[in-house]
């Protein structure tokens, strides 16, 4: 058979397919430049809040002659990409998303120009009004006396609980009589809220996926028991096997039997879906995570039924304690438009800009007091305001993860140990003793201890 017998049609189709592929693949890489506009690039995760940020930035940036083109990556890849690009001298980015645990690394590798460098100019300072930021929420973005990213989205950890069930004394009494337990786990068909549960109902929903989700929840229990976050920051001695740490591990392990099955592979979003599906009495998560699912009518069966409260602590001097998160966009150190980037951030994350952002992403927890205290905001976002007021007035003992070079490795050692304990491979105590040995070895290698 010769080529001629096939005719030209396959060749033509092939050529069209190649052209379409080339156009499609090249499309997202193009940076359009409308007349007179400065185009900024944004590198961040494809989360609802950052898509909202881009939308509002493009709307508010018009007056400034600025447009923003986003490039979305998986959350955990954003810092890697910025870091590797920065080390390679790539100047492709202007704005890059930052998470508080990355801040020490950002500072050490000089991936960002600190926001505080811009704030040293009085005009910029009066534009931003940094005194308006809620200190409890922004500290995680600060390191070595500098602010590294523009505060955008606070994420205090809170308990979200089913106020309609847990506040009901009859429900609690009937449950305790049947199961002799304070936790609210019930089987399918048992009565929950006065009617038979359609599915098994769990005491508490927690994200347990390895890679940070599990450890981040466990951190809250560690601080509640008065334990260090892995090591004593003064002596640099690992304390994974301290009495407080082991008590925390044992508590977390026994909590596991009241958790939703499959929690070992659930991220925050997956966990909140279970909570929102009316299958959980309690959840512990970042406030915005809960709000973004449980309070959204299209996603949730429990809208209006959730109460928010601060995480409890056993330490008398600090009845509430948590390890907080903070998120914000930073200015890439190799940006070709850093002044425009700063002006845009100042506009979008101003009081008015934040309010616009909340219209696009109602679960946003603002980092500005002026927004929380705004009467319209109080009216439109009562649950968020209720929870944030609890944070502001309750003044929970707030820590951020320590700025340690080996933090990720140390965290992983403890997380793996806890995960093994939850899976029944080891006892909580045995797992933590093994993890302590590994952390000690890590710290010795790093030269912190002998």
């Amino acid at each position, binding site marked *: 058979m010769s080529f001629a017998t096939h005719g030209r049609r396959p060749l033509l189709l092939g050529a069209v397919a190649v052209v379409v592929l080339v156009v499609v693949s090249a499309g997202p890489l193009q940076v359009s430049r409308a007349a007179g506009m400065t185009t900024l690039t944004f590198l961040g995760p494809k989360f609802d809040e950052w898509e909202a940020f881009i939308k509002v930035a493009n709307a508010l940036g018009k007056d400034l002659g600025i447009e923003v083109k986003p490039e979305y990556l998986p959350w955990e890849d954003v810092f890697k990409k910025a870091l590797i690009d920065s080390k390679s001298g790539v100047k492709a980015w202007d704005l890059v998303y930052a998470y508080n645990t990355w801040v020490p690394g950002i500072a050490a*590798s000089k991936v960002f120009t600190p926001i505080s460098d811009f704030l040293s100019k009085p005009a910029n300072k009066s534009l931003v009004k940094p005194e308006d930021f809620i200190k409890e929420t922004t500290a995680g973005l600060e390191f070595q006396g500098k602010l590294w990213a523009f505060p955008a989205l606070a994420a205090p950890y809170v308990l979200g609980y089913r106020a309609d069930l847990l506040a009901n004394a009859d429900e609690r009494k009937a449950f305790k009589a049947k199961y002799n337990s304070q936790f609210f786990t019930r089987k399918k068909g048992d009565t929950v809220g006065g009617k038979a549960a359609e599915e098994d109902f769990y005491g508490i929903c927690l994200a347990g996926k390895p890679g940070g989700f599990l450890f981040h929840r466990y951190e809250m229990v560690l601080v509640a028991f008065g334990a260090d976050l892995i090591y004593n920051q003064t002596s640099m001695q690992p304390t994974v096997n301290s009495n407080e740490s082991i008590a925390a591990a044992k508590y977390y392990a026994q909590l596991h039997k009241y958790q939703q*099955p499959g929690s070992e592979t659930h991220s925050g979003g997956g966990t909140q879906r279970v909570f929102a599906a009316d299958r959980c009495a309690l959840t512990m998560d970042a406030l915005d995570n809960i709000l973004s699912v449980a309070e959204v009518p299209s996603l949730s069966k429990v809208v209006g039924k959730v109460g928010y409260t601060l995480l409890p602590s056993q330490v008398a001097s600090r009845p509430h304690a948590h390890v907080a998160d903070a998120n914000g966009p930073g200015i890439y150190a190799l940006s070709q438009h850093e002044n425009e980037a700063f002006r845009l951030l100042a506009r979008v994350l101003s009081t008015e800009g934040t309010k616009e952002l909340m219209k696009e992403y109602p679960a946003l927890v603002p980092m500005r007091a002026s927004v929380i205290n705004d009467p319209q905001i109080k009216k439109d976002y009562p649950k968020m305001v209720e929870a944030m007021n609890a944070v502001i007035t309750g003044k929970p003992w707030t820590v951020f993860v320590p700025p340690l070079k080996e933090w990720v490795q140390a965290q992983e050692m403890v997380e793996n140990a806890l*995960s093994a304990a939850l899976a029944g491979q*080891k006892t909580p105590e045995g797992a933590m003793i093994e993890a302590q040995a590994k952390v000690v070895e890590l710290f010795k290698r790093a030269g912190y201890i002998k």
Partner: protein
Amino acid sequence: MTWATLGRGRLAFALLMLPAVIYVLTWRLAPALYTVWLSLTQYNIVYDAAPQLNHLENYRRIVHDSTLGEALRLSVIFAVLATAVELAIGLAAAAFFDSDPPGRNLLLGIFLLPMIMAPVVVGTVWSALFDRTVGPIPYLFELLHGPDVQWLGTPVTAMVGLIFSDAWEWAPLAALLLFSAMQAIPREQHDAARSDGASSWQLFFRVVLPQITGMLVVAGGLRLMDAFLELDKVIVMTGGGPGTSTQLVSMYVYKQAFQAYDLGYASTVITTLLALLAVAYAFYLRHYGRTLMSART
């Protein structure tokens, strides 16, 4: 032909060889040598300005790294079991397709689909299938009053889940290779065996299997080496957990390089793995050569 006999053709020979030599040196050898050099350094890409030579410190560390030892053990278990399952399914499927069932080409096309999916998509699909809240597999077990299996929540079942997903993705490759080998066997041999009264089992074990042994070794070798370095599905489905029960060696290297940013130590692990795999590959080639020889005779 030797260099001496090339005579005036030496220049042309050298020029013709040049692109291949450049390719091997720049594309293959240089990154490998750079990795070996990095393995002799302390280099945290976040905190260190440049790699600092620390001689054999990383190699000393590797000897005492029990987590790496465990990851290697798990990788071997995963690779051997996944390959065995894939070859078994692939062999059965190849025999089925070789029997020329109606609609063979369509069935073969459908059967091969998982192979062309990105591994990360395969991982996502199987995560959803095993999910306790929305997954059909736990639901099916519940309907059939089967045991309440926490598929990705216990060490054994998480490993089984990973092996299932890998077999689903790659059994088609084994089937394709073995099917092509079966198709190369002259039909006359089937007819002759049949006329001599051979049953289907006898036909398969006495006629077909001996002639596809070489391809079985190829398919097994390819899958073994690939499965040993599995990463994507582990990240998506289990994250290496629970505990470290599914933390295969690639995941361990990934964590060292891209979570701890310890490129020096990650390079040491890669270099050591490369050496181990080179030895394994040499044994494989030697055995493969012997198998081919015996298949021919």
